[in-house]
């Protein structure tokens, strides 16, 4: 019987201690990735690195819209991520304590300039942008020509609307429509509550002389009529039923464009590899134009460029893990495999050893900038409590799409303006 006792006690001990036995001494890397669309590429790259150096690299990608929840949960764990993403200045407020000062690291030395670095209030670089991206309206120029129009026609909202209305009116005859579905399912709604919302935000920042990182406590409704212009166009000149947008997904919208059923598709340059790869589109027939919405002087607008992808290294990780993480990231931006992967996935890569990207959208963005047009920076990076703010906007936008009345638009305006103030207070209160 004493044996039985000993056995049971031993069993209990074993159960609780078994997991602890797997502790490792060599540094290992745990990267909590923010971009679901790049997940596979990171997994492959991590496997290559492990093969080459023997250092274990774990890449985990949070489901879209859950990054901050996942980060909060993971950071509380003993095996916390060693590399994580900080999207913007308010991310520095939340996670600055956990972010290593990058000043003396080898990865920091590889950067091209300070444009995509996030500094804390004391001026220490805490997160390093690893790509910058552009978004706008992606155009299938082959279809556009087929419909008897050309890119040169489109220079502002009025001309965009004229072209889109014409295509939509002849959709049956042409076999394709103007815009791909503006789905408001969680997998797609960020295109509008995030990216499209940048347009009114950008213009009011511009008026007020603000830049990204200003983190205003309140915003105005100044350019929301313009937002309404473009949104009305999206939900009118499309094959999608505006009452069922809440269940219309990003994949469906992407497929609609990729399979040649729509001429216009609002999204970013990160779509390039999927459109040319998965859907086999010819890069020659792809172009990206600015999102026009009827603001004065918008013919001089360029694309929306910026980043919400900055690497931060967990300062509270083990010394060995920190070093392993720095080594891994340095390898990513300098090695053959790493730079190839970055060039394939992203269009703008702010590192010295970056390979030229084949991404035509990135080239479009540069072309607009070189032609002296103003680049719209990513003011939407300042959105307080971003997932919650967007959820409210999407709710209002969905209701408005199903019934585009002025009363429903008031709700959208309220979700923008009041929602911003509320979420700002939530986050800072």
């Amino acid at each position: 019987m004493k044996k039985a006792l000993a056995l049971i006690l031993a069993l209990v001990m074993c159960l609780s201690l078994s997991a602890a036995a797997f502790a490792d001494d060599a540094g290992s890397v745990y990267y909590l990735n923010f971009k679901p669309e790049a997940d596979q590429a990171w997994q492959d790259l991590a496997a290559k690195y492990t093969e080459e150096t023997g250092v274990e690299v774990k890449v985990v990608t949070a489901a879209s819209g859950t990054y901050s929840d996942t980060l909060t949960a993971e950071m509380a764990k003993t095996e916390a991520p060693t590399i994580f993403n900080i999207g913007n200045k308010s991310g520095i407020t939340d996670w600055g304590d956990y972010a290593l000062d990058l000043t003396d690291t080898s990865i920091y030395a590889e950067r091209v300039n300070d444009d995509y670095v996030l500094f804390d209030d004391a001026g220490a670089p805490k997160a390093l942008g690893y790509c910058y991206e552009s978004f706008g309206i992606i155009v299938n120029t082959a279809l556009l020509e087929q419909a008897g129009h050309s890119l040169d026609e489109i220079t502002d909202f009025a001309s965009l609307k004229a072209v889109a209305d014409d295509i939509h009116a002849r959709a049956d005859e042409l076999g394709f429509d103007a815009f791909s579905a503006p789905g408001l399912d969680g997998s797609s709604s960020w295109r509008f509550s995030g990216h499209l919302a940048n347009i009114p935000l950008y213009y009011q920042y511009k008026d007020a002389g603000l830049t990204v990182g200003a983190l205003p406590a309140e915003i105005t409704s100044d350019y929301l009529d313009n937002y309404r212009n473009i949104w009305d166009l999206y939900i009118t000149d499309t094959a999608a039923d505006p009452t069922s947008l809440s269940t219309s997904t990003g994949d469906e919208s992407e497929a609609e464009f990729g399979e040649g059923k729509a001429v216009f598709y609002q999204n970013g340059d990160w779509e390039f590899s999927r459109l040319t790869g998965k859907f086999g589109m010819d890069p020659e027939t792809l172009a990206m134009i600015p999102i026009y919405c009827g603001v004065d002087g918008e013919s001089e607008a360029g694309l929306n460029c910026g980043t919400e992808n900055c690497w931060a290294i967990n300062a509270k990780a083990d010394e060995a893990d920190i070093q392993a993480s720095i080594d891994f990231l340095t390898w990513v931006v300098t090695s053959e495999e790493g730079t190839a992967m970055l060039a394939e996935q992203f269009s703008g890569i702010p590192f010295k050893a970056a390979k030229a990207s084949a991404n035509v959208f990135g080239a479009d963005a540069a072309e607009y900038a070189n032609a002296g047009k103003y680049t719209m920076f990513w003011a939407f990076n300042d959105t307080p409590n971003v997932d919650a703010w967007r959820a409210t906007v999407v709710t209002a936008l969905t209701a408005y799409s199903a019934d585009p009345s002025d009363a429903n638009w008031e709700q959208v305006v309220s979700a923008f303006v009041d929602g911003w103030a509320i979420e700002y207070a939530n986050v800072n209160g």
Partner: protein
Amino acid sequence: MKKKKRDAAALSSELIRRPIRRWFPVFLLPTLVCFCIGFIWPFAQGIYLSFCTFNTPKDATWTGISNYVKAFRDAGFVHAFKNTALFAIVSIVLINVLAFAIAYALTQKMRGSSLFRTIFFMPNLIGGVVLGYIWSMIFDAILKHYSTYLTANATYGFWGLVILVAWQQIGYMMIIYIAGLQAVPEDMLEAAKIDGASKSQTLFRVVIPNVMPSITICMFLTLTNSFKLFDQNLALTGGAPSVIMNGAKVNMTELLALNIYSTYNINKNWHGAAQAKAVVFFILVASLAIAQLTATRQKEVQQ
């Protein structure tokens, strides 16, 4: 009653008691250790942390009752509270009336009653998250005919949740009612019949008073189930739609448990308030349970 019996049993078994005591490490210790890990310690720490600001429990600093003030000032919490109370009332009535009616019908002589019992109980075995998914698909499919969808309107979400929970729990309550109904003494029913009582008279004067204990149990279970509801709420609507009301943001279909959870996820400034809400929630649920238990006990004594 119970207590007396227990003491008597313990005292009279000195013969048994003494050898067992030495086996404490085998019999009680494993459960006790796990109970401390899984309940006692988290509970105590939870109470403490509700008075602190913290990101993780390691960096907690004492801030007094400010978390509680913050919790009660949160319009979303107040709304969730009202929502939960309304939801509890509606589902208690609906579930118990229907479950009793079904149980009553199934205990009459009727063909296929055991098959129906099987069918009605089935939804109970499916988890809340899965149920939420199934029903959101069904509700969206129905509402599509009216050009709308489940999360468009808080009313849809509320009644959707009521229907879901009713579908899930009616079978469970039915089983308890059936057990109660089968325990109604046959001779009392016979006596009622002989006295010429009508069916409804028999039901209200004889059957219902006799199944009172089952009714109490079912009321209690539906009450606590409604208050603790989380999975179904999360999976069906997740609290959507969220709207701005009187200058505050409210997740319209959020019940208390989900509100606590989503508060925690706002950011680290809200961890303390979320824990404070959890303490308030605990006090609420515990007092409901205690009130219910005392009421039941009193009734039992009277009988």
